[in-house]
């Protein structure tokens, strides 16, 4: 009785269509808010799209905002595959970026081909340690990673704040001294004209490589297989001889290390120092990015692009509507992604049912 599946029934198609459906729907709802503040939604949206996607400067800004969101989104997505909810990307990226800056300021005179990998590694180690701690606690004591990562976010924020106001700061500022010049990642405008003035830099390549790595790791290696089994059914993992605690620790550590790469964008590619408050909740946006991207590394890239666009777009439509509108839009996207899954599938089932009925009649 195996009937041929309708293409809409394939999970892959659905996973792709549902977020798009959610985004379209949330823009529609966002239009209502724009009407409420007395503006024309078509005008606002056309400015939003033309100023972000229509100019190379806008694209540069958008990509600059996208890069850290890819790292944070990948971090959350990878942990999620192991069944862990990493709320701690924010703390992990704070520690990671700070480590990048710290190592960078003390290693003046090292050639670039050593310095750049060194600073990248420093960020990964910093973030990795910050992911390892809640992973270890979860594996050994069962302490819930959500609570512990939230708490470690506070610890991370307080720690780096203390360091950049007291110990490692340039006097009278809240930032560290500059990193060694050899540790800088070149900006796009150094190579391509047109991106002038935009801070977008080659760390986005690292972000894309990280996405490729996460995909390969999860989808193509036995470690990724084990990680997925642990995430989907820890009892089956145990039965199959897969260590649950090892995989929890490992995935939290790798997730933390990926979040720790955020420093490549800001510290190595933009300001060349660590500054208090450089991340405006990137780690938390990472949760939304992972969700919208369906925890798929390539989905994460697309979702990060959307949120990067909204983040920069919020600035360009600032003169027309309150900036808060963009925050509302972002929130609506998330709400629709979460809730549209069921709605969408229901619509789909009804649609397919009608179709089979009409065929049979």
């Amino acid at each position: 009785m195996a009937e041929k599946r309708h293409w809409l029934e394939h999970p892959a198609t659905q996973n792709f269509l549902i977020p798009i459906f959610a985004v379209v729907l949330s823009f529609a709802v966002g239009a209502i808010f724009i009407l409420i503040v007395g503006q024309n939604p078509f005008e606002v949206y056309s400015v939003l799209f033309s100023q972000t996607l229509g100019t190379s400067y806008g694209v540069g800004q958008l990509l600059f905002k996208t890069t850290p969101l890819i790292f944070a989104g990948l971090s959350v997505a990878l942990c999620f595959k192991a069944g862990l909810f990493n709320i701690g990307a924010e703390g992990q990226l704070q520690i990671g970026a700070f480590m990048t800056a710290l190592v960078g300021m003390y290693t003046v005179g090292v050639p670039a081909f050593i310095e750049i990998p060194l600073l990248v590694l420093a960020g990964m180690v910093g973030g990795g340690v910050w992911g390892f701690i809640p992973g270890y606690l979860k594996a050994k004591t069962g302490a819930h990673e959500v609570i512990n990562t939230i708490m470690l976010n506070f610890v991370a924020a307080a720690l780096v704040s203390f360091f950049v106001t007291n110990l490692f700061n340039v006097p009278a500022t809240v930032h560290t001294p500059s990193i060694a010049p050899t540790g800088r990642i070149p900006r796009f405008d150094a190579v391509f004209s047109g991106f002038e003035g935009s801070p977008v830099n080659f760390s986005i390549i690292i972000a894309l490589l990280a996405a490729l790595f996460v995909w390969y790791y999860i989808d193509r290696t036995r470690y990724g297989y084990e990680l997925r089994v642990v995430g989907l059914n820890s009892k089956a993992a145990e039965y199959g001889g897969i260590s649950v605690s090892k995989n929890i620790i490992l995935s939290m550590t790798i997730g933390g290390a990926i979040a720790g790469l955020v420093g490549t964008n800001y510290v190595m590619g933009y300001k060349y120092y660590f500054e208090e408050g450089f991340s405006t909740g990137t780690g938390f946006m990472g949760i939304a990015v992972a969700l919208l991207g369906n925890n798929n590394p390539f989905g994460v890239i697309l979702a990060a692009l959307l949120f990067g666009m909204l983040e920069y777009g919020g600035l360009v439509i600032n003169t027309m509507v309150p900036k808060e509108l963009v925050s509302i839009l972002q929130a609506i996207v998330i709400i629709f992604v979460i809730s549209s899954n069921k709605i969408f599938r229901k619509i789909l089932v009804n649609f397919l049912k009608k179709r089979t009925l009409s065929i049979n009649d």
Partner: protein
Amino acid sequence: MPYAIELLSITKRFARTIANDNVTLRVESGSIHALVGENGAGKTTLMETLYGLYQPDSGRIRIQEKNVSIKSPHDSIRLGIGMVHQHFMLVPPLTVLENIVLGSETTRYSLLDLKKTTTEIAELAGRFSLSVPLDEKVENIGVGIQQRVEILKAIYRKADILVLDEPTAVLTPQESIQLFRILSELKEEGKTIVLITHKLNEVMEISDRVSVMRKGKIVGEVETAKTNPQELAQMMVGRPVLLRVEKAEKKAGDPVLTVNDLTYVDRRGISLLKNVSLEVGSGEILGIAGVEGNGQSQLVECIAGLIRPSAGFITLDGIKISGLGPREVFARGLAHVPEDRIKRGLVVEMDVKENLILGLHNQPQFSSRLSMNRKSINDNAKLLITRYDIRPMDPDAHARGLSGGNQQKVIIARELSRNAQVIVASQPTRGVDIGGIEFIHRTLVEARDAGKAVLLVSADLNEILSLSDRIAVMYDGKIVKLFPDSKVEESELGLYMTGSKGNSQEKALGI
């Protein structure tokens, strides 16, 4: 005789399948009517349509010779229909009494009038010999009693028609006998009973008429007295089925798996295994009979390396394996079909080919340090799917979408592909339909004939009796009886299983 239930040309479609295809079923008032068929044949859907949980796409329902429209269970209860689901709908922290009155409470000045209700229910319970402890919490009573509570609940709601979905799936043989006694009594009182089942001996024992469903259709209806299990099985499956396993007498070889004085004390300090000793020889099936929860699960988990015994040890081929983890135990030559396929044996969100390498994923043919060998994983899946006739024949199908029998075949295929010396199979055919059971039984016997040592744990006595070369009975964490062959009466096994006979430890040694 008038009809209590008439389901006329009922059709019910789900998105991709037709669960009921123009089904007509008439049940005579005051009779016990069995509805049999394999899993997925549409029995439960049909009855849930009657109960108002589904709306038919077309067709009519008549109850007690009147046209009715049933939009929800509310309507069906009003019409005197009660249903005891396969999974009980009870609230564990509430008492039996509270559960029975829930939803139809007698009130006095808008307060619960439990006193009046208690007398009413006690009277009902007495009339149908449904003894239940009214003040005990449901979480503290056994499943057999819980089922009586469900029946009482339906009768308290004035049900004249009672539908029971696989009622004996969770019961011991003794509890089943009691249930049947209750059902006969209900019939005497004029109630109409529909029994959904796929156990044919039950059908023969209790029903007046049988309807057989296959693939959403009724394929036959007969008077029970004029049929036999063989004929019913053939109708259910659509081809001749071997109900008894054919196996040659065979002398067992040397012991391969030995369990020596095994004791397991859990975290709360309760001894779940008490000095259990047994041997399984090559080329034999040792069956462990017992009511679930008497230590069989712990015995299997100790052998498979999932839990560590508190005392005693286990050897495989002369090498000690107790204390090792599952990975090492597999590597020493054990295959393990776990009792709960959904919780342990499969990752239902993964596809079939990935499930077919669980626990084998580290082997060189499937993965190197840097990558999985996707081609060999796929080839392995294709090979096993063909060899074990797993449906659908698609390595990329999600395990969740498979029927229970096919899910179990995935596990059996994987475990036998280990080419292990010892096979531990726990409840291998639970929830599997007749065709699947036949296949799995044949596979286990073939493994035995190929010289494997098979330890079979099952709550299904038929299975134990037809497959085992020797039978051990577990009760209260001990082996209370060892039968050197399978020439045992079911009733005698039952006495040992419930602890009424033989309370001292025996050792299942000496092949």
